[in-house]
């Protein structure tokens, strides 16, 4: 049984998709934000792997094909952005300054917290790219000399948090304008938060998509400057 599941191509995929569906069912039934389909699917998949004693690589052998379309899907985020061109043109300055302030805040917050936690330089640069999209984050972490695997984990934790709590955070922090909501979600929690922003509304989703690209590029510049300055 274990041998078969470990060598199966579709086990990892059906475990991921099936547990996501369980999450969707729970979300619809209980309407509580903690029943987030993405979170539920990750938890169920991890527990299943541990119980069945199947290692990550065997699971990923099939599951990885789910992620193969991530680049084309990210490319397609330009489509809702194009559809919301009017919002982008009307609020261009506000959006750009908003994203820039988020990128600066990220660098400053992480520096202060790293000092508080007495992290060493390697640990600090590992966490520096945590708000941006994985592919840029990996490149940046490598460039700065961080632990890439942990950077990826921090990016996932951040994105998952955005996917679960994005709507709630807008509410608590009093961010009401749809453009501002999108900018906040995309700048702070990259593509995973954006997946949620798409569900909140078209304007939110489009602005969030824009914020991923702009925040990612700004972070590359800011991190290099920051690292160089310290």
């Amino acid at each position, binding site marked *: 049984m274990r041998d078969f599941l470990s060598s199966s191509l579709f086990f990892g995929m059906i475990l991921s998709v099936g547990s996501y569906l369980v999450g969707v069912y729970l979300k619809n039934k209980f309407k509580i934000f903690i029943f987030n389909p993405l979170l539920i699917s990750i938890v169920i998949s991890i527990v299943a792997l541990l119980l069945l004693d199947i290692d990550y690589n065997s699971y990923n052998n099939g599951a990885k094909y*789910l992620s193969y379309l991530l680049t084309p899907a990210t*490319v397609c985020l330009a489509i809702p952005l194009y559809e919301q061109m009017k919002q982008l043109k009307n609020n261009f300055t506000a959006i750009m300054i908003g994203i820039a302030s988020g990128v600066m805040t990220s660098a400053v917050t992480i520096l202060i917290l790293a000092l508080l936690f007495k992290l060493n330089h390697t640990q600090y640069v590992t966490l520096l790219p945590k*708000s941006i999209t994985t592919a840029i984050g990996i*490149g940046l972490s490598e460039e700065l000399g961080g632990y890439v695997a942990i950077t990826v984990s921090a990016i996932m934790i951040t994105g998952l948090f955005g996917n679960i709590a994005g709507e709630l955070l807008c509410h608590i922090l009093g961010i009401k304008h749809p*453009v501002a909501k999108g900018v906040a979600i995309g700048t702070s929690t990259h593509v995973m938060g954006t*997946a949620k922003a*798409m569900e909140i509304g078209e304007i939110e989703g489009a602005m969030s998509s824009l914020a991923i690209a702009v925040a990612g*590029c700004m972070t590359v510049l800011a991190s290099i400057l920051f690292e160089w300055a310290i």
Partner: protein
Amino acid sequence: MKYIKQFAIIIGISFLGEILNRIIPLPIPASIYGMVIMFAALSTGLIKLSAVKETGKFLIYIMPLMFIPPSVKLIESWGVMKEFLVAIIVISLLSTVTVFAASGHTTQFIIRKKEKGGKQ
């Protein structure tokens, strides 16, 4: 046929993004170059919205599924992470909230100021 054409355009742009990623020595991934190319192509009318819309929306719709395998990978990096696990979690969550507040409120503040100015 329509879907195959749409898929071909999307994959083609992803491939262009990959080429740029290879040529330009910056840690910017193929997906971001591709997104810029797609946006530019739509804006200039080089590609019509109808030529990519349905397949594009479908890919965006199923995007959350694509994050499951890399997130499950958290079990693998557990060993290195536990060294400064509390710091990782606290920094990840706290900085998300500060970035969220800063970017959202700055944007909202400027938009509202402009809207007020426009009305006067």
